[in-house]
């Protein structure tokens, strides 16, 4: 058992004259026994990265190490890793027993009786003893999935590599297998790299998650850290469901008066004076109390009590997580488009200027389509991003798990900072 280190791993494909960089100098360390989830939109290079670790793809440059050993030049079968494929890839002509034992038969000197013992052990661990004599095509999707897992487990490899193993299951089974996989991984304590495009899987399963986009590694951290302090707009948008509301806002440095008019609680400014500030010169010098106004799409007008994040910016991208929105008497007013009652919560889709925003609101609030709704967001929950680079200027600052550690559960229902 060992950790996995990717050292500036690069993978290029050439299709005709075009060079495609699938994996762009990725540095990544998977700790021994860790469950690392590699997540990103399709085509971001996560599967290619996994295949480079597996040895199914040669890297263009860089190194892959298992523990201290450099395995870059080794072939897949020499690497002592097991992989679970998205479509399970069970051998259709072998029964479950042979499928499970195939790896041992090829890569070890065990007698067939010993292999059979291990097959029985793994089968009972996964609850598939009854299926041993069946062919893969006679199994349901969930059963096939278990066999695929068993085939990986039985080899007792240095690492598990999983390529979207749950994506072919129906929603209920997927949720079940999610917990089962985690339990199994904890029991076996084997380093695991898990690829998925599903951010729910990433958030719920990973000890740490690594977000990729366009072949580049964006951020690595605990699910909470990535959720709370994304390094850029992409990560903020990708992690979190429903995804974060993002829009442009101009930064306006205002005087004391504007702050007083908004009530001075660091909350949202109401409109009547919004139009005034829009027409006024945006380069009003910052006053001693240091507040700054964000003038966004539609009715959005927000006073930041701490101007440091936007110090050098004339405009920013504002991000508000749907779960941080609370309905209030004063604040930004939007028009309801659709309300999705979920039972324990309601999702509100509302029109903010020219774009739609999502809010998770109390199940008792039931605005009808067309109704105006006023909401507010605590400043500690507001995300700000550089409009050009997308880099995060400000992320959540309320008291919850400090970034970088993942020991506390995510407090998704925010607003506790108030």
């Amino acid at each position, binding site marked *: 058992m060992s950790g996995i280190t990717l050292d500036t791993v690069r993978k290029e494909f050439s299709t005709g004259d075009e060079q495609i960089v699938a994996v762009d100098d990725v540095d990544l360390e998977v700790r021994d026994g860790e469950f690392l989830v590699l997540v990103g939109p399709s085509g971001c290079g996560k599967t290619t990265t996994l295949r480079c670790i597996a040895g199914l793809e040669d890297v263009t440059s860089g190194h892959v190490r298992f523990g201290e050993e450099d395995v870059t030049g080794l072939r897949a079968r020499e690497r002592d890793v097991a992989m679970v494929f998205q479509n399970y890839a069970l051998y259709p002509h072998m029964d479950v027993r042979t499928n499970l034992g*195939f790896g041992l038969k090829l*890569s070890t000197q065990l007698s067939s009786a010993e292999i059979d013992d291990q097959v029985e052990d793994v089968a009972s661990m996964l609850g598939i003893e009854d299926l041993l004599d069946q062919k893969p095509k006679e199994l349901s999707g969930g059963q096939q999935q278990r066999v695929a897992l068993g085939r990986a487990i039985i080899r007792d490899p240095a690492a598990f590599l999983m390529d979207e193993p749950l994506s072919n299951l129906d929603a209920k089974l997927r949720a079940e297998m999610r917990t089962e996989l985690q339990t199994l991984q904890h029991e076996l304590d084997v380093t695991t790299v898990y690829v998925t495009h599903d951010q729910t899987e990433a958030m719920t399963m990973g000890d740490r998650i690594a977000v990729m986009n366009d072949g580049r590694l964006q951020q690595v951290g605990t699910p909470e850290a990535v959720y709370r302090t994304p390094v850029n707009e992409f990560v903020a948008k990708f992690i979190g469901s429903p995804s974060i509301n993002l829009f442009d806002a101009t930064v306006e440095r205002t005087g004391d008066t504007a702050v007083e008019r908004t009530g001075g609680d660091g909350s949202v400014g109401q409109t009547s004076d919004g139009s005034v500030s829009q027409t006024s010169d945006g380069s009003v010098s910052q006053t001693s109390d240091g507040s700054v106004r964000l003038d966004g799409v539609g009715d959005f007008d927000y006073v930041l009590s701490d101007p440091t994040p936007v110090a050098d910016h004339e405009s920013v991208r504002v991000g508000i997580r749907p779960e941080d929105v609370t309905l209030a008497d004063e604040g930004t007013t939007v028009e309801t488009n659709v309300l999705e009652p979920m039972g324990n919560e309601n999702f509100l889709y509302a029109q903010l200027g020219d774009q739609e925003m999502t809010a998770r609101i109390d199940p008792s609030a039931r605005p009808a389509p067309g109704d105006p709704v006023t909401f507010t967001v605590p400043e500690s929950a507001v995300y700000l991003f550089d409009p050009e680079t997308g880099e995060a200027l400000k992320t959540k600052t309320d008291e919850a798990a400090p970034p970088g550690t993942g020991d506390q559960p995510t407090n998704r229902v925010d607003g506790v900072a108030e």
Partner: protein
Amino acid sequence: MREETRREAVWQFLTYAFVLLGAVVTLVPLYWIVVASTLKESEFLSSTAPRLLPGDSFLSNFQALQARDNVQFVGHPGEMTQYIEIGPLYVAYDVWHLWDLGAMGSSVFVAVVYTLLSLVLCSMAGFAFAKYEFRFKQPLFYAILATLILPIQLLVIPLFLLMAQLDLTNSYWAIILPWAANPLGIFLMRQNMQSIPDALLESARMDGATEFQLYYKIALPTMKSSLAALAIILFLFQWNLFLFPLVVLEQGKYTIPVAINQLVGAQRVYYDQIMVAATLSIVPIFLLFLVLQKQFVSGILAGSVKE
């Protein structure tokens, strides 16, 4: 009866009638051959009342065929003992010099060896073309396909000269080797092997399989039905080969088509004997199909359900 149902019934009747007609057109010549083999020549060649029902002259026709001195249809096993005494080297010697297999034995021997050899070569080449990337893969593949347009007639002389250089004239290898890497077979195997999911092979690679094991333990078993189909095609191809065996083989090694050709004499065509030979030549093909039919059908069904 409603108008629609009636129309449907009429259509169904016409469809069946058409299919039945097709079956009759296909089967009548076959039936004629089999029946004729049991009749005296005068009975089935009669211009006034040709007999269409089986008679009892099959054995006498067969004996007449066996008694000919320019053709040995079914070999005389007794004469083979002299070779068996040579011992283990017999088989190797056999291939070059086995004389008295008879046409039936020659055809079966050649077709079986050819089919096995060609299955191996075609499936290997097909696997490579379907699942590996290498330089000049496409041009090579098209070059192989292009050889399909060369008729055997064109190849007879150069092939004969080649076989003469290799000292393989009048050897069974002369009609086995030239077509062993059958372009049609390579094409079929490549097309079918493309349907093997890459993940399946990668999964086996992760399980520790070598590239040869991928071919042998994964690709071949999953391709069983395609292999069965190809086996029938290859066997039939070799079974029906006529021109080149005629050129390159000598009398004792004649295959069935060449042997039958010998029954067309200068003065007389021995129709009764031809019919017996033709009937007998159908038997191995029939058996082969019976054996492989299960694979054939199961392969067709396997693809039809979701896996």
